[in-house]
Every structure is written in C-alpha cells, then in structure tokens.
C-alpha cells in the first residue's frame, strides 16, 4: 500500500517535470482563482469554463499557431492581500512571464492597478473593476471589456424603461438599489444618481453588509418604500438570500432585476422557488447548444480532462462567462502573434497590443462557434470597453431564458462620466494621457 502510494506520487512528480521540459513554446497565463470562501462556487464555475476552453484549444488546434497554452492557478480566497501575493508569484512564470492578469475581483483589481502598469502586464477585467479604466488613454494597461458597471447600470435602467413602455414613463417611479456594501457595490452609485436625475425616477440605495447572508432589515425597508423595481447588485451568497428574503416579505420577484454577477445558476438554484420570475442582466448567455461549448464537451469532457467537478454546471452562466474569458484571451494572443510573429509566445507588452486591437465581429464569433453567445467586441486605444451590450435572462425555475435582444446603455452619458473620472485620476496621479491618434 505504502509502496504503491509512493510510486504514484513519484510518477506524478516525474510527469510534471517531463511536461515542463517538452513544451518550450508555450504561452503562460496566470490564473488568480478562488475556489473556497463565500464566492468559491462562482469562482469554480468561471475559472472552470476558462480552463476548459484553453484545454480545448490545446486539444483541437494544438494551441495558438503551434504555441501551447499553459496556466497555473493561485488561490486568492477573494482576499486582496492574497491576490497581490498571487500577482507577484505568477508574474515571472513561463517563458515570457505572465501574459495577462484577470483576478475576477474588484478589490484585487484596485490593489494591482498600479503594479500592472509598472510590470507591463495587461489586466483584463471583463465586466467588473474600476469603471473609468475604460479610458485607455489614462489606463493603458487595464481593460474593463465588454461592459463596465456604469454601462450596465444604464442598460438596466433602459431595460426597465423598455418594460414600462418608454423611458418617459420612468418619471416619478421608485427604484431601489440593493447593493453589496463594498467597492464593487458602490461602483454603481455615481451613474445611478445621474440616471435618476436624467429620467426623473426616485432612487433609494440600500446597503447589505458583506457577505450578505442577513437581509431582513433591508427587505423590511424595501417593503415600506414599495419601489416599482429593485435592482439587485450582489455577488455570491448575497443573491440567493436576497431572493429568498424577497419571497418572505412578499416582494414580487418579477420586479427584481439583477446585475450580471447576480444572474447565475449559483444564485437562483439555492433560492429554490423564490427565484422564479427573477430577471438578470448578462453579457453572455447560458446553455450548452453553442458549438463552442459542444466542442469542449466533445474534446475535453469526453476524454475526462474537464476542470469542473460538477459536470452539470457546464453551460451555466458563469461557466460560459469563463469561456468568454478564454475566447477573448486566445483571440488577443492570436492578434498579437499576427503583428509580432506567429508561433512565438507573446510578452505582456505584446499581449497588451493584442488586447488593444481586438476586433471580434459577428462573423468571427460565428467562426468560433459563439454566435449570439457574447456581444461583438471592438477595442481601441481610447475605448477599452468595446461593446456595452447586455441581454436579459429570466429564471423560469429550472433554467435561464433570454427575454431581450442586446440592450445598450446610454453610451454618450457613460463615456462622458468615464472620461471625466479618468482625467481626475490622471491629474491626481500626474499621468499625461496618451495621444491615441499617434498609436497604431
């Protein structure tokens, strides 16, 4: 027994060493993931999807132009200090160092914001993070892609307006904002205040303390206010609690609209029947009937190489969001290789160029097997957001059903606020914004 165990461990170590020596041409991607703590199940789905996509690319295409993708996880526990440690640990791994850092935590994003610029590692914060970093002239190394919180808040208000039958109908309505009391939750305040002013609705902000499993008082307050809609701005365990407490206090779930971090199976399934009728935003859709997800099942799970312990979650919202992370990262590598040499691993600096010149149109999405899976994307030097479109999905008790087409936020208003905030940051830090007309 003892001998067998030792032999097994020995073989594992030998295999590990061997795999390190064979793959010389590889692109290293450091994954600061979290699989424990109050947000652990969310992290497991998202990083699972991402890893599975990279595994699939390695299996199907042999990597990107012959460069195999390699990655290493580092457990952050969603804790900023651990996140910084992971960032430093992963920084110099692989032949060209870490090529992109995507922490999936607003707190960690803030903590490494200045470090990534010093170390020249692009940080991609798809759908979260510091909103005004969408201004690429002040934040060349940060990419809050697809949609920032401000665009999202604006799109949610547009969706509510659409449901009411026109933005003019919002006047005099009451909207409650139930938010996670952290940097992430408060990111929405500036834009929501502005939108309330513009459309004439009354906004009430209700804070929920981290991690959010106690909301009796908050929903009591909501019941007194009787808002027409409640925007749920939560993450992890807070969402299911919100839906359950809403059911207990008798607030209709049809009137609760979640942000994309409140719109996954991890939120609705634990809430049980209380989640039925609840709508949430999303920049990717759920489901397994997309060629890209089917490829993963065929090439990864059929060979028993999948990352998900719970295979039934393949195709869930967060899993598919992980696939979006994978698609964007791999496409950026491909783009960078076009300029800096095919078949070579890219450095962080070259990857940044790849991200900054990323254009994924609907045709390319169809080629990737992801038509309608995520919005088309067009990143430029000045605009690191690049899409700003959302689809809304409703939970019918068993699965998410898409109920709208892509809805855009108020781009003009949001962009103005982003530039204003970014310029204030540049002034505070003494940064001279880049001149994007001179960049190619």
């Amino acid at each position, binding site marked *: 027994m003892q001998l067998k165990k030792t032999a097994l461990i020995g073989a594992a170590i030998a295999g590990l060493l061997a795999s390190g020596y064979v793959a010389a041409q590889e692109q290293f991607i450091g994954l600061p993931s979290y*699989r*424990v703590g109050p947000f652990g199940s969310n992290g497991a789905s998202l990083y699972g999807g991402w890893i599975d996509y990279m595994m699939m690319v390695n299996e199907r295409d042999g990597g990107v132009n012959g460069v195999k993708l390699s990655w*290493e996880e580092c457990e952050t526990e969603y804790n900023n*200090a651990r996140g910084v440690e992971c960032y430093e640990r992963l920084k110099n791994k692989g032949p060209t160092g870490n090529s992109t850092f995507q922490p999936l935590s607003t707190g960690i994003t*803030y903590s490494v914001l*200045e470090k990534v610029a010093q170390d020249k590692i692009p940080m991609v914060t798809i759908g979260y993070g510091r909103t005004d970093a969408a201004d690429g002239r002040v934040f060349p190394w940060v990419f809050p892609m697809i949609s920032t919180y401000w665009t999202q808040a604006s799109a949610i208000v547009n969706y509510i307006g659409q449901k009411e039958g026109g933005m003019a109908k919002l006047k005099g309505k009451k909207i409650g904002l139930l938010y996670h*009391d952290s940097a992430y939750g408060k990111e929405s305040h500036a834009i929501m205040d502005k939108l309330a002013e513009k459309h004439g609705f009354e906004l009430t902000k209700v804070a929920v303390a981290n991690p959010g499993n106690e909301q009796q008082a908050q929903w009591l307050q909501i019941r007194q206010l009787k808002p027409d809609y409640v925007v749920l701005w939560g993450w992890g365990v807070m969402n299911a609690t919100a839906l359950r407490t809403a059911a207990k206090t008798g607030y209709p779930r049809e009137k609760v609209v979640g942000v994309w971090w409140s719109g996954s199976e991890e939120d609705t399934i634990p809430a049980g029947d209380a989640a039925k009728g609840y709508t949430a935003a999303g920049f990717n859709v759920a489901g397994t009937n997309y060629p890209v997800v089917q490829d993963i099942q065929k090439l990864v799970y059929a060979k028993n190489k999948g*990352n998900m312990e719970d295979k039934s979650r393949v195709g869930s919202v967060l899993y598919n969001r992980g696939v979006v992370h994978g698609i964007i990262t791999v496409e950026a590598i491909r783009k960078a290789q076009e300029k800096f040499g095919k078949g070579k691993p890219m450095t962080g600096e070259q990857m940044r160029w790849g991200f900054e010149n990323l254009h994924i149109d609907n045709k390319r999405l169809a080629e990737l097997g992801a038509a309608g899976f995520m919005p088309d994307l067009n990143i430029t030097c000045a605009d690191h957001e690049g899409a700003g479109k959302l689809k809304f999905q409703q939970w019918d008790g068993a699965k998410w059903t898409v109920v709208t087409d892509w809805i855009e936020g108020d781009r003009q208003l949001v962009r103005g606020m982003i530039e204003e905030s970014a310029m204030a940051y540049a002034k505070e830090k003494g940064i001279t914004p880049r001149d994007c007309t001179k960049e190619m």
Partner: protein
Amino acid sequence: MLYREAGQFKASYQEDQQIFPIRQDRIGFAAILVFFFGVVPLVANQYWLQAILIPVLIFSLAAIGLNILTGYAGQLSLGSAAFMAVGAFGAYNFMLRIDGMPFLVGIVLGGLCAAAVGVAFGLPSLRIKGFYLAVATLAAQFFIVWALVKFPWFSNHASSGVITAQRVEILGYAFDSPVSKYLLTLAVVAVLALLAKNLVRSTTGRSWMAVRDMDVAAEVIGIRPMHAKLTAFAVSSFYCGVAGALYAYTYLGTVEPEGFSLDLSFKILFMIIIGGVGSIMGSFFGAAFIVLMPIFLNVVMHSVFGGAMPAGMGSNLELIIFGGLIIFFLIVEPHGLARLWQLGKEKLRLWPFPH
C-alpha cells in the same frame, strides 16, 4: 554550551538593565539585523520582498500591538483590524489635506488617530473585563468600518470608497521599488519593536502586567488601573494604526474599509496565540506562521499535486490542513512558538550535556 553564560558578570546597573543581558543574544540580534537590513535586500527577489517579507513585517507590527493589549495588559480585543483602518485612513487624510506633509509624520499622525480612537473604545475596560470587553471592542470593529464607509469624506469622495495611497517620498527620495519599500517597512518595524520591548520592561509595562495578573492586588500596591488600561489601549492602537498605514502605503497601495474586516482582526488574534501571548518575539513568529503557511500550502498543492486532483479540492484541503495544523500546534505547545524558542535556548544552554 552555545549559551554558556559563565564569565559574563554584570558590574553596573546599566549592564544589568540592558535588553539582552547575555552576550550571545546581543551578537545574535546584531546578526539578525545585519541579515535583514544588509543581506536580504541583496539576495531576495521582488516576489519575496513585495509579497512575503513586507506583509509579514506589517502583520508583526499589528501583532505586537495586540500583544501589548492582550498579552501584557490582559485586555481582550477583537478590533485590531479596525484600528489598522483608522491608521490607514488617518495617514491618507493627513497627507491629502496638508500640503507637504512628510511621510513619516503622516504615518505617526495616523497612528495617533488610532490611539485616540483606541482610548475611546478602551473606556469600557474600566468597568468590564474578559469576554464582555471583547464584545465592546467588537463594536469598535463594526462601528469604525461602518463610519469609514458611511462618510465619503474619509475616502475623499472616491466613487467606490477605495483610497489610493499617495507616493511615498522622504526628503525627495521616492520609495517605489520593492527593495526601498521593504527597507522602509523594516526600519519602522524594527524601531517600533525595540521601543515596545523596552516599554514592556519599563514601569508602564510592569503596571500593565500587574493589572493583567490581578487588578485588585495591583491597585493595592499603588498602580492606577485606569491609567494602565488606557495607556495599554493607546499604545496598542498606535501600533495597529501604524501597521495599517504601512499596509496601505508600502504593501497594497489601495485599500478599502472592507479590507479591514473582522476576519483580519481574528487573523491578528491567531498570530499572537500561535506566536505566543505576552512576547514581542512571538508576534514575529506568529505573523510569519499565519502569513506564510497558507502560501506555502498553496504552492505545495499546485506544484506537487496540481495535476493529480481537482483544483477545488486542493483549495479546500489547504484550509483543512491549515486549520488542523493550528489545532495540533495549540495542543502540543499552548504557549506558542515563542515558548518553543525559549525551550530551545534552555536546551542550548546545557548542550551537549543535558545533565
């Protein structure tokens, strides 16, 4: 025989009162200082400096703070992280609002803010003790974090409540490389640790310990319990505050109030329990253990068993092993790592002849 004291005579009061009465200790301490100030910056890479050594030093300082309060003065506290937050936000606001505020002065002022808040929340200690006091400091933990979030003035009206630390500059020299930040942190921590060591040997420290051991008896022999308790709260909070300011300025760069949660307070409490309650050196041991062990486990899990088991299981195993180690450790050595060090010294004194 390494610790043979034979022949070391103390002929004056001065010699009798020095911090390290044994010559070997003095040499050892000097060697440690030379090693950390001189050798480490030369040999350690960025990762070690920035991600390991700086946080260990900062948490050591916070642990010293709590150790003064809990270990020496016997007052339980669960609010250390909140006092760190006061230090961080205090230093940030002093540097933001007063032009040309020198960095070190800002840090000290941040620490003084924390000391003032600490005294305010220490007032209940005059009437209540033990667990009841712990609950009162728990209130500090919740109140301070709530206040920092509630009033946007503290974070200079940042949209998300996160503060970004200003550049660290002393006399025109910018501390922006990991080496310089490490040396700055080390210098502050070394000075304050020495100060703490001296403080606990002084009248103040003795009165703290007298109050800890039996406050009625202490009062009878002429120690003012109120004075002793409040100075303990002030000094302890000052240390935590400075640690918080360093946490913001030399380690993370940006902090939010939620970062200083109850979790962090517990972590600091674990540090002094593991390291040794009532020991300055134990604070360093404890901080190193609590900061390094999870990272070590994470690295081991990934590099040795990475391919062999699901990643989620690895992360959970880390927590299980870490928790198990703490329990095992407390059963085997309830007085902490500092006690182990002391036992080692005793053994070395007799070595190689145990009898």
